[in-house]
């Protein structure tokens, strides 16, 4: 089982649940941390691939919370915190129930919304962050596009990252022409 297309998740979101009141935006507590799918994909090195976005760019939610927002598995949600905002896939958490809590596996997507504050303890606050979740139409970005979009290290002035072509799923660099 070397590659997976996406993690297997259950699908029991009941949109018609009478106990659930629909909301536009949900205030939640954000947790991040490792997850076996994320770990396997990251350490194999497949970080540019679509697989990485499906294992690390995922917001695992309680099915009730998903019903409140009206999002199904693998639909996009926008997660916002004081430190940034990022588009992730919504997915049914296998650790549910945990209403009011979301889990994003550690990775470039989670990094955008976690707190860099260390309180002089060397360790940033990766867990227990206040965030909001809402439904969105935006696409979840591939890793390379996300890094370009967020940090803009090699984006020229005046260029808009959303208009640039995708950097794709394989490493791109200029090779030296080798004579045989």
């Amino acid at each position: 089982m070397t590659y997976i297309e996406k993690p297997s998740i259950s699908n029991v979101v009941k949109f018609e649940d009478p106990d659930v009141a629909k909301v536009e935006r949900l205030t939640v507590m954000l947790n991040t941390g490792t997850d076996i799918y994320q770990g396997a994909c990251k350490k194999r090195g497949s970080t540019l691939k679509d697989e990485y976005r499906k294992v690390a760019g995922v917001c695992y939610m309680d099915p009730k919370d998903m019903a409140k927002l009206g999002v199904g598995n693998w639909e996009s949600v926008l997660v916002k915190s004081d430190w940034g905002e990022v588009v992730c896939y919504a997915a049914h958490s296998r650790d549910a129930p945990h209403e009011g809590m979301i889990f994003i596996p550690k990775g470039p997507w989670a990094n955008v919304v976690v707190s860099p504050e260390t309180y002089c303890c060397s360790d940033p606050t990766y867990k227990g962050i206040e965030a909001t979740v809402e439904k969105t139409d935006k696409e979840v970005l591939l890793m390379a596009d996300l890094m370009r979009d967020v940090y803009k290290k090699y984006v020229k002035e005046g260029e808009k990252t959303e208009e640039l072509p995708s950097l794709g799923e394989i490493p791109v660099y200029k090779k030296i022409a080798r004579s045989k």
Partner: protein
Amino acid sequence: MAYEEPVTDYDKIVENCTCAFCGSNCDDVDILVKDNHVVGVRHACRLGASKIMEDEDQRLTVPMVRDENGELVEVDWDTALDKAAELIAGSVRPVFYGWSETSIEAMKPGLELTELVGAVIDNQATICHGPTVQAVQNVGYPLMTLGEVKNRADMVVYTGSNPMNAHPRHLSRYTTIPKGWFRKRGRFDRTLVTWDPKYSDTAKLSDIWVPFEENGDYAFCNAIRAVLKGKKLKQDVISGIPKEDIYELTEKMKKAQFGALFFGLGLTHTLSKQRNIDIAIQLVQDLNKYTKWVLLPMRGHFNVNGFNIFMSYEMGFPYGVDFSRGYPRYMIGETTTIDLLNREECDVFMVIAADPGAHFPGGALAHLANIPVIQIDIHWGPSTELADVVLPGTFIGVETAGTSYRMDSVPIFMKKAIDPPETCREDEWIVNELLQRVKKLREASK
């Protein structure tokens, strides 16, 4: 999950290799090799197997330098090393971060280079078990080796960690499932307890799950300590747990013959940080008035503990050591990587065998976009998207032999199974080469 045929087409099996993934350092992994390529792995968990069977599409094979358009361009080793050495020699406040996924052998020249240029050397402990190290300095370290737990423990507690996801063989190889000298029936002779707000994959396997509230670890551990000291709990519910349950759990912990507490990043990443660990360690100390209890941090990378041991041995400080004044200084919150980046203090960042792009908070990474970044790694990862010089290393434990320290501080020699790609160089060689080049540049500028 689809069924996969067993791998039968291989030239040789390299037996008893050490897995280079997590702090469990399983040293019983068999690697199946064909034409100098790994075609299969036996005994490893999903994580270990996926790391050893790496993704060759994204392997860094050649040295690269960014051109003026911001594109990576392949160059020869001399050019790349000279460029990196120039950046390091010309910097005022360099930070050398990483080291946890390379061997102790590579750290040695790294430390020499750090001293020479007056840099800050730091490892992944700074973003994971740094608070643990601080707590150990505060209140002590009732440590054991994992073999003791296997042979003796009848109660195993995991808190703030999810070994079924992060250290999948930890339970089956060291703590809960194996048969031990005094635990002849293995899993049936042991009580597995998980304290975690989430019903994690480990909690699902446990006999007892204690779902305390988020950020409730400190109060919960303190409540157990109070009960141990014979005090009555005044609140009915503490951190979301009814007090009767706390009395019952405390009684069970007191009655265990040999208990082991394992804790992970759930404790170090929440708001109380090192104070959580302080209290967990003191809880274990208190329990030792009644019976034998030990504890161990669940270290993440296979050599993250090795770096802390190496640095403590060489310099007296475990991580975040600053040489800018010519002598080693260590001050949490001052000389640690995330704080240096948050304050936008460092001007050259070298990352070796680590991936800050994937693991640093965005607020800290934003500064990496302003400064040159040198990357020494084996795969094209999120950090490569921010790197200006890329130097391809080799894979410790598969392509290069080396020493690492397991989470319980047992040193393990990791042997090699295959030869590295021709164009890659060992981390030790790369760091040494940088050291020599920086030395030359320094002498020339005198």
